[in-house]
């Protein structure tokens, strides 16, 4: 019906499956081996495409930018547990329930790697969580959209994880070593998330009429928000001021513009939608023979700004859940600290068993 009637495991389905992550691992090993040869000033390290490590000197602005970005990324991982976590209890098969639980658990793990990376810059997780809870630091706006049907778990995996991977693969070569290394681990797992999402929609689009409708409805609702995940335009006439693109590029934190990444995502995803037998909610979507890219319609940026300012369907709910869990767990964390202090141990206590 739509060509091959199976999902080819060898055909790359997301940006982490084209070898760039492995290349980043290899490049990091090579540059690490050469590290002693170049100069050791911040500029010299950047110029030699070396990783900046926690012990290296770095400009305060670089440090602050990284803390903000890594923290926001970490917050997104743990807030991102909620939209799909919402469906663990209702997953329609035990296999899907197990996959979903494992996926949401992975997101918690991503949060941990990233908070650990941020901690190498001299902040601690508790401080960063306070900033999240008080609204002083943000998380990705995409998680302020609701998950209305089972198919949303498919659309999130396919589109949201797919877009996140597109953003994160270049970060595997980020100039800050601990962040780059965290991204390598994250990208490998994200790739599995994106595949399971695609597979959910694949199954639905070959199912009953109600299942197909469910899949199409989810694709319709998640398409535009996924495109917004790359951030506002930062190239050409439409570039919004106040972006950090140029500075982040100079620092080797960012390697591609928001618009380039968005275009790569569209180019990769449109043919996948056709494979799924789903349409995308953009009448202007057409292949441009001249440029070799898919042209797409205008993005309604007012929606992103509105949701960013707090007026999304789930902004209040997400933070309330997070703060609620944190408060409700305070007595547990305090007990663990008191116990560790009293027994002076950094490790597990032997109980008589």
């Amino acid at each position, binding site marked *: 019906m739509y060509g091959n009637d199976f999902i080819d495991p060898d055909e790359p389905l997301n940006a982490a499956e084209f070898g760039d992550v492995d290349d980043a691992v290899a490049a990091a090993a090579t540059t690490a081996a050469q590290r002693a040869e170049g100069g050791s000033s911040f500029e010299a390290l950047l110029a030699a495409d070396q990783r900046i490590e926690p012990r290296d000197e770095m400009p305060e602005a670089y440090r602050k930018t990284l803390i903000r970005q890594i923290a926001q990324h970490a917050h997104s991982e743990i807030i991102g547990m909620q939209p799909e976590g919402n469906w663990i209890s209702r997953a329609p098969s035990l296999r899907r329930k197990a996959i979903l639980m494992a996926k949401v658990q992975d997101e918690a793990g991503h949060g941990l790697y990233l908070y650990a990376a941020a901690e190498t810059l001299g902040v601690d997780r508790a401080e960063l969580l306070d900033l999240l809870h008080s609204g002083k630091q943000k998380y990705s706006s995409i998680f302020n959209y609701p998950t209305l049907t089972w198919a949303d778990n498919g659309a999130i995996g396919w589109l949201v994880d797919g877009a996140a991977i597109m953003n994160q693969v270049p970060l595997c070569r980020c100039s800050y070593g601990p962040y780059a290394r965290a991204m390598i681990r994250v990208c490998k797992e994200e790739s599995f998330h994106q595949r399971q999402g695609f597979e959910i929609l694949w199954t639905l689009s070959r199912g009953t009429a109600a299942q197909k409708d469910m899949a199409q409805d989810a694709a319709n609702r998640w398409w535009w928000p996924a495109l917004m995940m790359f951030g506002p335009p930062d190239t050409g006439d439409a570039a919004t001021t106040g972006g950090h693109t140029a500075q982040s590029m100079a620092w080797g934190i960012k390697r591609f513009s928001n618009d380039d990444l968005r275009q790569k995502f569209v180019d990769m995803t449109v043919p996948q939608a056709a494979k799924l037998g789903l349409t995308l909610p953009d009448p202007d979507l057409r292949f441009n023979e001249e440029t070799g890219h898919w042209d797409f319609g205008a993005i309604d940026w007012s929606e992103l700004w509105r949701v960013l300012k707090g007026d999304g369907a789930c902004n209040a709910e997400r933070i309330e859940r997070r703060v609620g869990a944190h408060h409700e767990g305070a007595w547990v964390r*305090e007990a*663990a600290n008191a116990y560790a202090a009293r027994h002076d141990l950094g490790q597990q206590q032997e109980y008589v068993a």
Partner: protein
Amino acid sequence: MSRNAIDTSVSDHSVSDHSVSGSSVSDTTLTTDAAAYCLQLGDDALIYAQRLGDWISRAPQIEEDMALANVGLDLLGQARELLTRAGQLDGTGRSEDELAYLRDERQFHNVHLVEQERSDFGFEMARMLWFAAYQCELYAALANSSDETIAGVAGKAVKEVDYHRDHASQWVLRLGDGTSTSYVRMKEGLERVAPYVAELFEDDAVSVAVSEAGVGTLPSSLWDSAFGHVSRVVAQATLTLPTDSTWRSRGGRQGIHSRPMGFLLAEMQHIARSHPGATW
């Protein structure tokens, strides 16, 4: 809590139905009992996995979101294999999903302990400590089951539940011997869980039949070791086990459940039941 809390007499179906020696139990009867036994164990694991799933994104710290998800995933894996085996043994060929999603409340055979609603972390660690202590002894015994599938599931699961028991034990120690607040909350957790413990170790006609046939084991035979572990951890946590409560749960193995069970199933089953015949 004392051994008296455990009513070792067999309730409902009298033992005499099956108390003949293993060899004289007809094959059909045995496979029916073995299937029912797999449902009991599988339902315990499934329903507790469902409850633990509620913790994910609500745990006291991120490490604990991961740990509770891990325990839930292990239990879910055990449930899937045991339910599948039940569907083979009872001759209906029902799949894990048919058994999980299409049975009504009266056809579930889990104990009340696992169906209770998620409460605070003290309650959860008390529940996990008892349940994992029980499962450790259970699977150790079942590794020698004459049913190869059950033996295989048990052999793998025994390592998983050992981790669960260790995890819960570590928390009971920290909470009992942590702050004055955590001491009280852990104590209350143990007290709230206590009335549900005896049911785990109660024999019924099914477990008697399968243990005689070498397929299963008597729950009452697991008590001494499980109680031993729990009481040592509790003592080391500077806590004491509650005295016997005035009531105790019963009936889960016969499909008689407590109020939260119907709501749990309504939530768990509703998408699957709304789309009859669909694959996911």
